[in-house]
């Protein structure tokens, strides 16, 4: 038995873990791009155009 498999949790929790992690990952990517002025300018321009 490898170190990975010995401590397995049930498949439902594993799916839930993966889903939560992916959501947090998407959030991180969004925060990263929110810091770049290019995107801010783009949104501002779009807002002004309206």
């Amino acid at each position, binding site marked *: *038995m*490898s*170190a*990975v498999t*010995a*401590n397995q*949790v049930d498949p439902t*929790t594993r799916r*839930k*873990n*993966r889903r*939560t*992690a992916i959501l*947090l*990952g998407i*959030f*991180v*990517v969004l*925060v*990263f*791009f*929110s*810091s*770049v*002025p290019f995107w801010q300018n783009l949104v501002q321009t779009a807002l002004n155009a309206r």
Partner: protein
Amino acid sequence: MSTTASALHSEHEHHPYGWRRWLFSTNHKDIGTLYLLFALSMFFLGGISAMAIRAELMFPGLQLLDPDLYNNILTNHALIMIFGAVMPAGAGIANWMIPLMIGAPDMALPRLNNLSFWILPAAAMMLVLSFIVPFFPGGGTQINTGWTLYPPLSVQVGMSMDFLIFAIHLLGISSVLASINIIVTILNMRAPGMTLMKMPIFCWAWFVTAFLLILVVPIIAGGVTMLLFDRHFGTSFFNAAGGGDPVLFQHLFWFFGHPEVYILILPAIGALAQVIPAFSRKPLFGYHSTVGAMLVIATLGMVVWAHHQYTIGMSLGAVTYFMIGTILISIPVGLILFNFIATMWRGAMTFETPMLFATAMVLLFSFGGLTGVMLAVVPADIQYHDSMFVVAHFHYVLIPGAIYGLFAAVFYWLPKWTGHMYDERLAKIFFWVNMISFNITFFVQHFLGLAGMPRRIIDYNVIFTEFNFISSVAGLIYGLSHLLFLYIVIKCIRGGKQAEDKAWEGATGLEWELPSPPPFHSWETAPQVK
């Protein structure tokens, strides 16, 4: 608190041996150990650079270093200590303790856990390369920006800055992955019956810290990416000549940099919330208010970044907002410290080494907080700005606030980790030598700053000689005292009195229901928390 009838499974410790155990590890305890060993080695590397700085400043006039090398060492000292030592040490303790404390068999994402650690040595290599590359032919100039990496200087530095930028990227990726893992573990892997509001404060502290990390690390990653683009791809994000704004980088940096202070301190506060009740033999006073205060600290900490930039010429309204916001943080911080004092009040206190470090943290961190309030006041800060007073302030915040909290945590849980009690007598000697020399080193720097000595300079006016000499002698003793810590830890790992499952009389929590050291696979059957 819980029943743990069939929680253990120690008859077979199935795990790979040799280097495979560490390189391919998905076990939270092994990865925690790796983090701690990495942090310790970086701590000594950062410590050597600190001692080089203090040795140079011992007397006026140039003695040991040339100005470029001094700036390079100064920059690396901060980056190594913050990103290489304190953050990985906190992550190491989190890795070790969170699953044990919430009754989980491991971290939620064990392979991701392995990745987030093994990115660190690569990042450390980049960091060290940024230091040594300028010494090779064609290596360019040395880094002279300080850890804040402000443009336009950081756009002009040689290729060592590129190594530094990639080091920060790697360290950021590692931190974000570790934070995601911690959040998912806490949300999804708690034992039945352990609601969020029954969770140990240490886990709460890391829960808040992990959210802070995923909110602010991408911002500095964005900032240094733009810096990289300005340096190599013709953009002008921060280049005034091209229509950019160097002050924009300062905003991005401090939007990360100020919450970073709480990222360093909150895990230490969480550790203290375990240590102080254990050695006061009383439950923590104000559990709910402590959790609430940590949330308020994190929220306020995110919106006061520009108090580091009072001198850039902001509007009166903006500086007033940042001043009031910053001073407001002293309320939740004070609340936590008073909760700790109320926990001690009329407790059956004993002063083993973890409690000594915890008490020192409460006292000295309060002092650092007090000078923080002084620096938050705009007219005063304009006087103190970029002086040794600031250096004294943040060392009073970060050494007691983060490192003493880590020492308290390490001495508290070392018996659990190793199965042996550490040498209490030596540990107490270490505490006293460390605490006294720390205070002498940094206390006098307040006066140097108030008298007008600027920070980040290699040489100074002769009127500052005496206090610099005192600071340097004490600083060298302070640095060397950590060799004693190393000896105590090695001695404890190699042997010593067998630690009981519950190593401390007043300790509470699930981790103390496991053997010392815990089996390789712990909590295979989740405990029931009542």
